[in-house]
C-alpha cells in the first residue's frame, strides 16, 4: 500500500547528529516533490539527553505536525524505550541490533560494525532512505550542500556510511509497507524554517543593522542574517546584553539603518524600556520575539505562546505598536518584510511574534521573488524640509518628517523626555497633550493598514476555531479533520494580533454556533484580548503549555465532541 502521509521520528541524544540527518532527509524528500513539516524537540544541553527531529512527509498539502510514528529511527536505546509502545502495526522501527525487540517491522542495524560512531547517524539515514527508494544519486547533491564546507574526508566517510546503511536497509527491508506514493520531483523548492524565513524577510525588507544577545530560540534568526551580512551590506553586532542590543538598534535606526533585534521572553523583558524609548523618539525598529515556555528560564528550548500579553503591553507609557504573528514559513518572510515597512512608515516599533516550534520547523517552500521585495528607504528627503526643521512637527496623521542626522544640514534632535516639535526637552503641559495625541493618532493609519484575519472552512460553522501565530497549520488541519467527520467547521487565524479591528471579524464570531480559541498558553491570552476589544466572550479554550506544539489530534481530543 502506498502511503500519502507518513511521520518519521528520528530520536537520539544531543551530539549524535540527528539534526544533520534530519535535514538531509528532509531536503531529499522536498527534492522528490513531497510536502514536509518538521518538528524539532530538544533539551537545553549540548550533548546527551533526548532530542527528536520529526519529519511529516506527504504527497499532498500539509501544514501541520501530527501524532503517530510511521518510521522510528532510534539513534540510541532511550529513544527505543520511549517510543516502541507508540508504534502502530504498520510502523517500521530502525534500531541497533543489540537491542531486544518483538516488533515485527524492525530493521535491526549493526551500527557498530557498519561504521565509526561519528557516522552512525548517516548509516541510519541510509537505512531510512532504503524505505523510500532514495538512492545515492538523490542524496549526494544534498550531502554536498550541507556538508560540503567541511573536510573532504568527512563528506566521503558520510557517503560510505550512507551506502552501508542503504545496503543494509535494502537487504533487510520489512516489505513495502511504508512506501510513500510517488510524486513529481521538484528541486526548485527551498527548505526553510521559520527563523530562516524571518532572517531572509528582514534582508528583503532592507535590514542594515542587527544587534543581538544570544537567546534560544531567537539566535538562529541572527545567525542566518550573519551568514548573508557581507553580501547584503549589513552590520551585525553581538551586544553585551539585551539592553545594549535594543539601544544600539535604536541608535542605528535613528542614524538611518533599518534595524532589528531578535530575542526571547527574558531578553524582551530587558528590552522593554528601550521599546518605550523607540515609541517616544518615534524611531522605527523591528523586534522579533521567539517565544518559549516561561516564567523566567522555564523550558528554554521548547515552544509556547505565553508572551502575547507582555509583548502587547511591554514598555512604560503609551505609544502605538504593531505585532505580527506569522503562521507559516511564507508569513515569516512576508510579515517580517512588512514589519520593516510599517515600522518606517509609522516610526514606531513593529514586532514579529514567533515561537520555538515555528522557528525550527522546516518546510518545502516556493522560492520568494527577490525582485518584488523593495527595501525600505530610511527617512524623508531633507530638501523638502524647512529650516529650522521640526523632527516632531504636529501633523494630522501623526507622522512627522523623519530626517537622518548628518544627511543634510538639518539638525535631527530626538529626546526620551517629552519634547517640542524641534525635539528638545519641554515641560510645557499643553505641548505634552499635543504630543501624546500626535503619537496616538498614528493608530488610525496603522489600523487601516492592518491585516485581516484569514478565514478557512465552512460558512456559518458549528465550530469556529480562533487561533493566531504558529498554531495556524494545526488548526487548519483540524478543520479538515472535523469536516471529514461531517462537522461544519472553520477557523479564523490572526497573523496580526495587535492592534485588532473588530469590524474585520465580528460578523464571523457572531455567525458561528460555538467559538473556541486555540492557543499555546495557560491563561487564554488571545481569547481575553478578543473580549477586551470586542466584548465578545470566548469561554471554550483549547490550551497547550507543555512545551510542545499543537497537533490536529490534540485539538480534536480536547474538543471532546
Amino acid at each position, binding site marked *: 500500500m502506498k502511503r500519502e502521509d507518513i511521520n518519521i521520528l528520528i530520536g537520539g541524544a544531543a551530539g549524535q547528529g540527528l539534526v544533520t540527518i534530519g535535514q538531509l532527509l528532509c531536503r531529499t524528500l522536498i527534492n522528490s516533490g513531497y510536502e514536509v513539516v518538521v518538528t524539532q524537540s530538544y533539551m537545553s544541553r549540548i550533548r546527551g539527553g533526548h532530542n527528536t527531529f520529526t519529519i511529516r512527509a506527504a504527497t499532498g498539502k500539509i501544514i501541520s505536525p501530527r501524532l503517530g510514528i510511521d518510521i522510528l529511527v532510534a539513534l540510541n536505546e532511550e529513544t527505543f524505550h520511549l517510543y516502541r509502545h507508540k508504534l502502530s502495526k504498520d510502523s517500521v522501527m530502525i534500531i541497533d541490533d543489540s537491542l531486544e525487540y518483538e516488533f515485527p517491522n524492525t530493521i535491526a542495524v549493526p551500527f557498530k560494525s557498519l561504521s565509526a560512531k561519528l557516522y552512525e547517524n548517516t548509516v541510519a539515514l541510509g537505512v531510512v532512505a532504503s524505505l523510500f527508494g532514495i538512492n545515492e544519486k538523490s542524496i549526494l547533491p544534498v550531502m554536498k550542500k550541507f556538508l560540503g564546507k567541511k573536510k573532504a574526508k568527512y563528506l566521503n566517510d558520510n557517503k560510505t556510511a550512507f551506502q552501508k546503511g542503504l545496503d543494509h536497509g535494502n537487504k533487510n527491508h520489512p516489505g513495502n509497507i511504508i512506501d510513500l506514493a510517488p510524486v513529481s520531483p521538484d528541486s526548485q523548492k527551498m527548505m526553510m524554517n521559520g527563523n530562516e524565513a524571518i532572517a531572509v524577510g528582514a534582508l528583503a525588507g532592507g535590514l542594515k543593522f542587527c544587534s543581538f544577545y544570544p537567546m534560544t530560540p531567537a539566535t538562529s534568526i541572527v545567525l542566518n542574517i550573519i551568514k548573508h551580512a557581507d553580501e547584503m551590506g549589513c552590520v551585525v553586532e553581538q551586544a553585551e546584553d539585551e539592553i545594549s542590543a535594543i539601544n544600539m538598534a535604536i541608535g542605528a535606526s535613528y542614524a538611518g539603518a533599518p534595524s532589528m533585534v531578535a530575542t526571547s521572553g527574558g531578553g524582551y523583558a530587558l528590552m522593554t524600556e528601550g521599546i518605550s*524609548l523607540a515609541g517616544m523618539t518615534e524611531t522605527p525598529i523591528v523586534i522579533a520575539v521567539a517565544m518559549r515556555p516561561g516564567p523566567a528560564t522555564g523550558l528554554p528550548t521548547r515552544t509556547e505562546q505565553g508572551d502575547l500579553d507582555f509583548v502587547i503591553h511591554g514598555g512604560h507609557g503609551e505609544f502605538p505598536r504593531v505585532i505580527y504573528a506569522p503562521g507559516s514559513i511564507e508569513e515569516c518572510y512576508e510579515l517580517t518584510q512588512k514589519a520593516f515597512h510599517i515600522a518606517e512608515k509609522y516610526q514606531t516599533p513593529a514586532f514579529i511574534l514567533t515561537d520555538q516550534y515555528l522557528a525550527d520547523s522546516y518546510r518545502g517552500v516556493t522560492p520568494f521573488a*527577490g525582485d518584488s521585495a523593495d527595501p525600505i528607504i530610511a527617512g524623508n528627503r531633507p530638501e523638502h524640509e524647512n529650516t529650522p526643521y521640526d523632527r516632531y512637527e504636529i501633523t494630522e496623521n501623526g507622522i512627522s518628517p523623519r530626517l537622518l542626522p548628518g544627511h543634510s544640514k538639518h539638525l535631527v534632535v530626538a*529626546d526620551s523626555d517629552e519634547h517640542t516639535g524641534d525635539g528638545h526637552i519641554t515641560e510645557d503641559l499643553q505641548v505634552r497633550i499635543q504630543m501624546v495625541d500626535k503619537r496616538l493618532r498614528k493608530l488610525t493609519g496603522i489600523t487601516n493598514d492592518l491585516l485581516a484575519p484569514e478565514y478557512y472552512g465552512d460558512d456559518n460553522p458549528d465550530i469556529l476555531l480562533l487561533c493566531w501565530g504558529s498554531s495556524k497549520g494545526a488548526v487548519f488541519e483540524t478543520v479538515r479533520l472535523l469536516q471529514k467527520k461531517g462537522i461544519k467547521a472553520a477557523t479564523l487565524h490572526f497573523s496580526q494580533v495587535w492592534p485588532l479591528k473588530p469590524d474585520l471579524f465580528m460578523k464571523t464570531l457572531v455567525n458561528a454556533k460555538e467559538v473556541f480559541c486555540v492557543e499555546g498558553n495557560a491563561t487564554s491570552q488571545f481569547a481575553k484580548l478578543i473580549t477586551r476589544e470586542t466584548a465578545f466572550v470566548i469561554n471554550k479554550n483549547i490550551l497547550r503549555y507543555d512545551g510542545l506544539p499543537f497537533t490536529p489530534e490534540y485539538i480534536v481530543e480536547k474538543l471532546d465532541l
Partner: protein
Amino acid sequence: MTDIKEFGEFETAWCPGCGNFSILKALKSALSACDLSPWQVLLVSGIGQAAKAPHYLKANVFNGLHGRSLPVAIGAKLANHELTVIAESGDGCMYGEGGNHFIAALRRNLDITIIVHNNMVYGLTKGQASPTSEQGFVTKAQPHGSPSAPFNPVNIAVTMGTGFVARGFAGNREHLSGLIARAIKFRGTALVDILQPCVSFNHVNTFKWYKERCYELPENFQSENRELALETSLEFGEKIPLGVIYENRKKTFEETFAVLQKGPLYTQLHEKKALQNVIDSY
C-alpha cells in the same frame, strides 16, 4: 576652525555655579577647534543633569535613556561612521546604570568620544552616592556614608588599554577644551572624565577641593607609556593629575568591518540580485 557661534547659546536648567556650564563651553570650543559644524556632530546622552547638555548647543542630538548613551552612540556610529559621535553623560549614567556598556565600549574601540561630567554624585535625583563617590560620602540615601569603594574610571580605562584616556576639570576650561578636542580627533574610543563641582549636592568635592588637588600633566607627558599611565591613573587623592593620561592608537572597530568601507549604511541599499542569491541558497 568653525565659528563657535554656530553652536548657539541656550538657556539651561542647571543650578547657578554648577560646573556643567564650563564643560558646555569647553565642548563648544573644542568642536569649533576641530573645525566641525553642528550637522556633522551627533551628541548622544542619557538622563541626568549632565545628560541635558546636548540640548544646550546646536548639533544632532539623541537624548536617550538613563545609562544607555553608549549603546545608542555605538549603533549610530556603526550606521553612519561619517558622523562625529560623542556620548556625553554623568557619572551615575555612564558608570552606574550604564557600567556594563562602558566596559563593553572600551573593549570595542569604535571611533567615538565619551565625555563624562563626573560630579561624584547623582545630581538630578537629588544627591545619592554615585559609583565615583568616595567611600564614606554621606547622603540622605547613605546616612552612614557610601559603603562601597569608588570606581576609578580613568584607571579602569587605562587598564583595559582604551585608545585615549584623559581627565579634565571643569575649573580649567581652556585645558579641558584642549583635551576634548584631542579626544575628538583621536581615532578610536576616547574617554574624557571631567571633574565637575556640583554646588547643590556635593559639599565634599567642591570647586575648592578640586582646585587644591588638581594639577596639569606637563606638555611632554609620555601618554604612550602604559606603565606610566597606569601609575598616573591611580593617583587620586592629595594630588589629582589632569591631562591626556594614555594614548594607544590601534585599529578601530569600524576599520575591521568590510561593509563599512562602502560608506554609511543608509547609502547602501541592497541589490535585488544579492537578495535573490540569498533566497536561492536555501
